[in-house]
């Protein structure tokens, strides 16, 4: 039986500078609430080719009991893969160093994941965008009757700031971005692959992620570049037909018409 912590809480930073301190504090608050709830948590700080200001922002992280890892990828996918490979928790949660978690996030997400251990990937109920824009995004629960697997072929449901079993990251690593070749949306691709693999994306009630509006977000860049996800079996008619034939009731592609639920 594993003796590692329940959760590895990972904050990834690059050039956020002092602003990263806000995110770090929000992470530590959520860790405190989870620990008070009896959940064991380790904190990993992953610095991806940090500029001096960002490095400085985390210079006392180890004194706070955090593990600090430095890598040099310039690409969020490999950074997260590296973090997952070094995490000792059964679950891993990621936070970008310019966003914030609601303080109940880790505790509630862990509760949701433990409802079906090893299979559930937890997302917040609300993404609260701030800064240059002000809207809220209600995330979709895969068990919600409104969930439509065909929609995932043409648009993305979830970002990667989730709590997931460490196996989900290790068995299905994020692929690299390659804007020159027109491939991006590694979060979308990971969502398709995890759904295809049988993971269930759930929403942890009454939780929020506060997401800072970035002037040049990776999504905006990918959209302007006419990027696509990399190939996935989730898009393959043969795989879809096989799922429909063989797993009518348990397939991740099942559609259930009924009334949607509230977050």
């Amino acid at each position, binding site marked *: 039986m594993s003796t590692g912590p329940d959760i590895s809480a990972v904050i990834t930073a690059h050039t956020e500078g002092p602003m990263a301190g806000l995110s770090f504090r929000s992470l530590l608050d959520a860790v405190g609430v989870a620990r008070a709830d009896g959940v064991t948590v380790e904190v990993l700080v992953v610095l991806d080719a940090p500029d001096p200001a960002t490095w400085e922002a985390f210079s006392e992280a180890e004194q706070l009991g955090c593990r600090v890892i430095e890598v040099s990828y310039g690409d969020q996918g490999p950074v997260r893969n590296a973090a997952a490979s070094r995490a000792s928790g059964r679950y891993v949660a990621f936070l970008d160093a310019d966003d914030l978690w609601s303080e109940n996030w880790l505790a509630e997400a862990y509760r949701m994941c433990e409802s079906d251990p090893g299979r559930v990937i937890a997302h917040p109920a609300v993404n609260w965008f701030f800064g240059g824009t*002000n809207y809220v995004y209600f995330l979709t629960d895969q068990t919600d009757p409104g969930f*439509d697997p065909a929609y995932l072929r043409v648009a993305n449901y979830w970002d990667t700031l989730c709590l997931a079993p460490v196996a989900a990251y290790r068995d299905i690593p994020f692929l690299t971005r390659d804007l020159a070749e027109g491939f991006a949306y590694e979060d979308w691709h990971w969502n398709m692959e995890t759904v295809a693999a049988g993971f269930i994306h759930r929403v942890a009630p009454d939780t929020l992620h506060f997401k800072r509006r970035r002037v040049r977000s990776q999504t905006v860049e990918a959209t302007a570049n006419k990027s696509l996800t990399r190939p996935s079996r989730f898009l393959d*008619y043969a795989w879809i037909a096989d799922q429909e034939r063989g797993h009518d009731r348990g397939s991740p592609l099942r559609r259930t018409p009924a009334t949607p639920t509230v977050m």
Partner: protein
Amino acid sequence: MTSMKRWARRLSTRRDGPPDPAPQRARPHPGLPADPRAALRALLPADGREDDRVDAVWERLLLCAHPALYAAQLTAEERAAYDPMLDPDVAVAHYLGHGARAGRRISAVFHPQWYADRLAERGQSVPDGVVPFLHWLAVGWEQRIVPTPLFDEAFYRERHPLVAHPWPFVHYLNRGLYEAKWCPSPIGRHHPGADDAVDVDGPDRIARRAPLLLREMLHRAEAYDLARTSWLEEGCLAALASYARLDSAPMRALVAKAAAIEPLVHTPRPVHRKVSCPPHRHPRLYLTDLVEATRHEVGVTHVDTVVLVPDTSEPHPSEPGTSGRRLVAAIRAAEPEGELLVIGTDAEPGPGGGDGHGAPRTLELAARTQGLPRDQQVDLLLDVVRGLTPRRVVVADSRLGWDLVTTYGRQLSRQTSLGAFLPTWDHDEAGRRVGFAITEFRDCFAQLDWVVVVDDALRKELVDRYLLPAVSQRRLLLVEEPGETDSWDAAVAAALPLPRRRA
């Protein structure tokens, strides 16, 4: 004049002139009330049948009637007999003659339970025997009760402060429903706007309304009792409940704690935050339906070759499409065992049907993509191509095919071999070759493994214009004698073995 335009014209004259007389239909419909206004009068409460009140309710009924929603509730036999989408007058007449008493719904802006709840808040209810929608038109309207969760009056006022109408819901009914710039609620627009209505041209098009298609409301229609609710309304109700939940004490406390760390969490600071709640309201919702319907229609899960043609009709022997047919035949001759699918992308097939290319499998996309934004048309085709995992995709004069390769050729060329047939270039009025497909050729040639042309002068022009080196010229294949099958077979036999240009 089409029935749609008659409908639009009638609404237009209704605005400018005196109340309409009984609607003038081009032909009588057996089983429908001869005088719909009289039928309406009979359905109203006894104390509300004065002429001026009936006139007012009639006006409101015409403004709020949505034939697409009503048509979706009819039986196949009823639709075959009347088809309200082809004659919206019929929708109103059928509703007054049959649907109202049967509990059917004709208005996308009337949600029976929502209205009952709003009435209950005022200590009122719909009297027994009265049709709730007609009660709203006669009574609720006077009290300015908004009978749908799709419209938030406070939000509309805040978002559109220049709307002068004393009851903004009327502005929404007249304009907001039809024009993309008007946002009716924090949940967002529920219809794309002008793209969702049957097109009506002319300078007075704002006044002349045509029926909405209501694709979002009719999404997964089979799963809902449309007389009561719909995918869109249920999704909106769930989103509104989630939105209200944000105002609960626990959620407010969580936001406050985050704001204590980062005060910018509260910026910018409107009264109402907008909501994004896919998939219930998303511009790609209709595309989701299309990709699934198309996947089922294709009927196979893999083909070796996809050929994209403008349309799949049998071309006249003198038409350029003849070359497309010969190209398909040559590919089949080169790979007799290979599964081949011909997709018509730009126009519906003519009266002769859609097997004019002699291919065992054809797919018509043009009819499906009408009214769809171009980027979504490309993405629909992309879903088919990625879903079928072909070894080869050939663009044979298809504009949508060229758009596909222009947009996603970089990525597709990593998965499949891309080829093209370039029959000619369009000329402008001055005879200059600036038209289709010079831009497409320039943008796509780097991704194409081969290009077949049928005109030696065209080939020479391409080589000269782009200073194509010898290695590039080898990918530019000439059909020596376009009228001869052997010549096509030779060109295709030379093309197909050309190595993939991308690993």
